[in-house]
């Protein structure tokens, strides 16, 4: 398959690829694995949270 991305999406891919030290291909593959992990947790009835270390405040990650 050929992945078609908008300019904004391509810029985001460039930025993430550089900041995480991975090629675009490796980054997309890893994003897929992470999305799969989150989806599995949600499908199993679990909740996914992001925690702010300073306040321990938790925000639920909503995946629509």
């Amino acid at each position, binding site marked *: 398959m050929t992945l078609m991305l908008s300019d904004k999406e391509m810029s985001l891919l460039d930025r993430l690829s550089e900041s*995480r*030290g*991975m*090629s675009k291909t*490796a980054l997309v*593959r*890893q994003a897929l*694995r*992470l999305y*799969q*992990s989150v989806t*599995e947790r949600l499908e199993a009835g679990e909740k996914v949270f992001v925690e702010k270390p300073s306040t321990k405040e938790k925000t639920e990650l909503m995946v629509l």
Partner: protein
Amino acid sequence: MKELLRSVVLLNRRSKEFEDAQVFRELDQKNFDDFEKLWKPLLKARRDEFDTWEAAAEGDAQDSHWKWAKKAAEALASLGRDETYALECAGETQGLMLVKTSAFARLDVQRGRDLVYIELLATAPWNRPRLVKAEARYKGVGRVLVAEAINLSHHLEFNGRLALHSLPQSESWYRDIAKFTDLGYDEEKEMVYFEVTEAQAAAFLAG
């Protein structure tokens, strides 16, 4: 499908000779059978010599309850996110490993970076000196499998970064021999957490 990744050699402590061994990705029925029929009776017998799971560290039998077939099935269903590996030598399974590829580093120098996480790693009971109470068979099984996890980390462009929680029976190996960074006791997992930097991974592979 089970795939041969590479051939390696293992030192047979008893004969003092090196023997050919093979590293496979994905476990098959032979590995499950070896675990159930060959590993488990030895692990259970040794575990039963101790009153508590904590005490079983002395006998190197704290993993007697691990369910490899179930874990391998879950890994297979993950479509490549989780991977299982087997090391075979002399027609028998000498080591097993389960890794996850959706994890992030905690160590300051690499915090938030992707890494490979070793969920389970075990060498056959007859290769464990404290379990067999005599001359164990093959040396280097754990080292070969950890090296394979580092290879996977490189393949995924994680540059060798790795992490794991260690059973008490294995902590000294990761800390003193492998020279991984000990980040202390993790209350959530109730085990000590170790992480491997890119430099430590390179040193491990070179050693």
